[in-house]
């Protein structure tokens, strides 16, 4: 789960990590007021989940409260397009107005789980303010890494080693070590999957400041952080994605026009792949899950039928725990709630396949049956009007 920069900074501040003075505004007038309170030059930052905001025109500097209000009026309400968003971009409802501050050095600090080692890794670099993936690819030696053993947790020496590695001034070693320790506490106590401060700046008077902040939370740990529900901003997510999440379905919209509904993530990806191999583009990833109920199948099928881009759809079910008759019943129920306007190819096998096929045949629904995966993919691509 992603949260906004201003929310991430509020959490960091609770752990004693210094963040710039500022406030969040939903209207240009509010932005102007915050700028007046701060005094001096301020930075107006669009609050969206996507990165690359600066290049997309989502971050601007204002010399006065009047200018702040004017710039905020341009940013609030815009659809921000960055390299991380779709072509339509994401809506901007809020801006963060912050004191510009005097920057002496820009550093990078991030914590993620290294899945290869199975451990949290703290990464720090003097190449702050840049795309860290690019730094990692081109100059990996510029990134310091410290793995944290869960049996001893974060120890002060790790913070010192990183601080010395970043060539901090003598009097900054202690505060930097403490800051890194606090960021690790955020990572652990908040069940984060990513904490990133980029840049972490050294101000001209020698202080440390988290100028930008990104905090992603582990979806699997939401049950022990009930308060996260309030942090969620549905305007930042695709409507169909949200609808899917509500029904516990795993759904991702893509650019093609051949829809698919599959049980299991691996098989769902493989189904998308074979659609592409036959010469068409998948419209979505949709996994109803291993043990879906009839209701889940109904919701999933309605979701699939609700995408106006879809010209034909493929239902690929390998029944195990999920019985084919349940899938058939779910599809028939869905067709009562949402008219089927596109050709549907169904390939089923496994548990109760005969019963599932019989139900579909008797339903009178315009369904094309397929024998196996290849046959199904060929039939759905033909049904959409051929390859290309």
């Amino acid at each position: 789960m992603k949260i906004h920069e201003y929310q991430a900074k509020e959490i960091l501040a609770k752990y004693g990590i210094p963040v710039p003075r500022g406030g969040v505004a939903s209207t240009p007038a509010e932005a102007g007021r915050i700028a007046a309170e701060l005094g001096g030059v301020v930075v107006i930052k669009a609050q969206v989940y996507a990165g690359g905001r600066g290049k997309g025109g989502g971050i601007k500097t204002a010399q006065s409260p009047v200018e702040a209000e004017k710039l905020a009026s341009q940013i609030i309400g815009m659809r921000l397009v960055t390299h991380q968003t779709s072509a339509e971009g994401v809506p901007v409802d809020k801006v963060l107005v912050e004191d510009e501050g005097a920057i002496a050095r820009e550093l990078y600090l991030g914590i993620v789980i290294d899945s290869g080692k199975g451990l949290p890794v703290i990464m720090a670099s003097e190449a702050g303010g840049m795309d860290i993936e690019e730094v990692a690819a081109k100059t990996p030696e510029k990134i310091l890494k410290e793995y944290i053993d869960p049996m001893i947790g974060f120890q002060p020496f790790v913070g010192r080693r990183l601080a010395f590695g970043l060539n901090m001034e003598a009097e900054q070693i202690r505060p930097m070590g403490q800051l890194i320790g606090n960021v690790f506490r955020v990572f652990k106590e908040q069940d984060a999957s990513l904490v990133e401060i980029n840049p972490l700046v050294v101000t001209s008077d020698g202080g440390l400041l988290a100028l930008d902040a990104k905090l992603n939370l582990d979806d699997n740990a939401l049950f022990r952080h009930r308060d996260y529900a309030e942090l969620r901003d549905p305007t930042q997510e695709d409507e169909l994605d949200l609808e899917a999440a509500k029904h516990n379905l795993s759904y991702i919209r893509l650019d093609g026009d051949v829809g698919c509904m599959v049980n299991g993530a691996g098989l769902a990806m493989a189904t998308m792949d074979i659609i592409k191999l036959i010469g068409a583009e998948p419209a979505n990833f949709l996994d109803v899950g291993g043990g879906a109920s009839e209701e889940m199948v109904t919701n999933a099928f309605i979701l699939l039928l609700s995408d106006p881009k879809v010209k034909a759809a493929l239902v690929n079910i390998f029944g195990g725990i999920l019985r084919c008759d349940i899938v058939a019943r779910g599809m028939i129920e869905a067709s009562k709630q949402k008219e089927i306007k596109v050709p549907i190819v169904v390939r089923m096998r496994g548990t109760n396949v005969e019963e599932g096929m019989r139900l579909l045949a008797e339903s009178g629904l315009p369904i094309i049956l397929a024998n196996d995966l290849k046959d199904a993919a060929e039939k759905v691509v033909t049904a959409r009007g051929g390859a290309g």
Partner: protein
Amino acid sequence: MSILVDENTKLLVQGITGSEGSFHTKRCMAYGTRVVAGVTPGKGGTSFDGVPVFNEVERAVKETGANASMIFVPPAFAADAILEAADAGIPLVVCITDGIPTLDMVTVLSYLERKSISLIGPNCPGVISPGKCMVGLMPGDIHMPGSVGVVSRSGTLTYEAVAQLTEQGIGQSTCIGVGGDPLIGTTFVDVLKLFEKDAETRLVVLIGEIGGTAEQDAAEFIKGMTKHVVAFVSGSTAPPGRRMGHAGAIITGSSGTAAEKIEALRSAGATIASSPAEIGLVARKVFRT
């Protein structure tokens, strides 16, 4: 022979009285698996389908000699269940549970490293040695005893591949789903090592997917293997930065893409099935040569 589970496996089920646990335990028993004990805290002293239920794993192991555990405990309590099984010294733990917090798994893996215990999963379909023993939730009847080892990060895609093998008349020694999470116990490399040593296994089918570097690690090991590997990697059409169902199936950086994984496996000498519909066919061609 086969790997990990066979006719000598004495299975304990943690969470045996839950709805999923009871359903799948019955299916495993129907397949022929020897289920010797169940554990549900608070239900010790009762029995499930003739299987004694205990409050604690340690006690269950002492009284029944269980040597493998299958875990069907909800995600909030699953890490604790794995640690309890490990603490009791059960050498093979198969954790089916999906949705365990990542930091819980950090603690679990760190503890398991200090013990000689194999964890399969979490978020996996389990392990089956066809005709001998099934520990998991796969449909047993699509399998056939034989000499192809199957290892995969997926569930239903593994069933698809196994069904294709069986249709081609190619049986399996053992099929393992290692799980779709970013942090798992037994890895592709661990399983490949076991297949390489297993006298019965003659060919390995490996099914990977986007995200992480497990396929590249496997490719490094395959270079030194005497047995041939057929591989399929799903997710060529997956967009970067989106989690495709499995927590681990997300492309971050180029190493996570299907194209890089396929290239690594191909240059390590594996035969690539380019279509998911042709895994069985490709395996048969390689198997017959």
